[in-house]
């Protein structure tokens, strides 16, 4: 027979162990979810960039942060969807404080590079470009 206090202690212990498990898994799961959202954003932006390229025969000329690029592509009618910022939620646009995506092009705007850096460091997590890394798979 287990005493009432024992049951309470064990229940508390079980809760603590479960909390530790959640604590251990929380960040990796959040990161995996974020990475999936980033992939979706990258694919939409990449497709819009290709549409822009077909029409203008060059890629956008200047380097931009992700949100700025999205606004630019939307203003020009190459991106219709409203994208969500994968790091902070909400509409992804130039006003976002947290934006780890960046766009670059060469001097002639004939190629592009989209990079996404880690939230906590400068490590490149995703790279999608028109020369070497042409897919996310």
């Amino acid at each position, binding site marked *: 027979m287990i005493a009432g206090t*024992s049951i309470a*202690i*064990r229940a508390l212990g*079980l809760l603590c162990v479960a909390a530790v*498990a959640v604590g251990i*898994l929380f960040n990796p799961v959040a*990161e*995996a979810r974020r990475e999936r959202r980033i992939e979706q954003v990258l694919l939409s932006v990449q*497709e819009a960039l290709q549409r822009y390229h077909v029409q203008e025969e060059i890629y956008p000329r200047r380097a931009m942060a992700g949100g700025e690029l999205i606004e630019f592509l939307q203003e020009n009618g190459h991106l219709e969807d409203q994208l969500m910022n994968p790091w902070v939620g909400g509409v992804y646009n130039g006003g976002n404080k947290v934006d780890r995506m960046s766009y670059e092009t060469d001097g002639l705007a004939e190629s592009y590079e989209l990079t996404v850096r880690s939230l906590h460091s400068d490590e490149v997590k995703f790279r999608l470009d028109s020369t070497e890394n*042409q897919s996310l798979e």
Partner: protein
Amino acid sequence: MKIKTTLLQFYRLAILLAIAWLIRSHHDRIRVQGGWPITVSEVKAFLPEAHRLKVDSGERKGLIVLDQERREIGYAVRTMPYCREIVGYSGPTDVLAVFDADDKGVGIALRHSYDTPSHVEDVKFEFLFMESWNGRSWDDIAEITDLNDAQIYAVSGATRTSEAVAYSVNHRVAMTRSEGAAGEPRHFGWRDCLLCGFLGGGLLFAFQKQKAIQRWRPLYSIATILGLGFWMGDLIAQSLLAGWAESRIPWAATPGLVIFVFAAFLVPWFTAQPLYCQFICPHGNLQRWFMKVIPARWKRPLPDDGKWIGRLVPVMLVMIVVAVSFLQLDFDLAGIEPFDAYVFNSAGVATLSVAVVGLLLSLFFPMAYCKFGCPTGWLLEFVRKRSGKPRFSDRDWIGLALLLLALGLYFTPLDRILG
């Protein structure tokens, strides 16, 4: 009673094997399907009877198409990620190719493309091109080296995109031939011999209780710590077991390690003797030496509630391993155990911390890590034959819960969990 004992033993082994099989099958599915799984509805466009897709982990690495009666009615493959290097105008294209039961092409579809959208649209609506594979057998397609010779003509205005599509299909089909499972040569090296030697030593001390033999046990214990641990770094760990479950058991590359791990599970299962935990494990042996450092009067027994809570820790860790494996989380499993700490130059902070804290605790609470922290030990203990009256214990319920967790993760699409 004997039948009940046997049934329980088979139940325990079956639980572990079922979880390992689910992990393997899940990873086979991911390997074949990649990041953009083919759905039944996509295949239905070509094989209207399609009802289910079964992963073929064989050399074709595709999907067997089944009808409602579970008859094989065709085969489907996607070209990505295998053909990611085949680029059209500005990127590769993921193509679905479907074959009927006679292995003849019934159609292709462009699933997703990194290529210029307008060119992709041009190819998609050029039916003559899109039907070029219809009626051709898998082998015929695999043999195509020149598109014109095979009367597959590129789409005007989208030449590079359509050629990339055509080459992707051909390459994906031909790939299974060049990759043909040329068996890896078996290699039984000195490491394998040493592992078998350590195993033999463990068996000797576990089953031969004569004083003349047991007097050598301290020496063997030191040899496991220095040799198996610090020198070879071959400790059974969750990262190793999960890796084998996810990919394959390296029979050819490290047969000694395979025999070692199998013996660690099967000897206790057959004989009730905790061979690995009690005799071989370097970390267990190191804790046994640590126990002797401090006088017995300084040691503190844990209260029953503390023991009960402590025993939940390894279970929680096994659950984490299952979740990490199914969800493919970016989480180093080596960090939840102390075993990688024996390989100094590659040990991470987490594994070193677990090792040091575990050893310090063992000064005051004998074998604390083994009892209240080791998920690998929990698995080995789970399958171990028990003495006494056979009964479905808490451990067996926990095993069932683990299997249910694995089944839940296996049948829930990743998208639903990871968004």
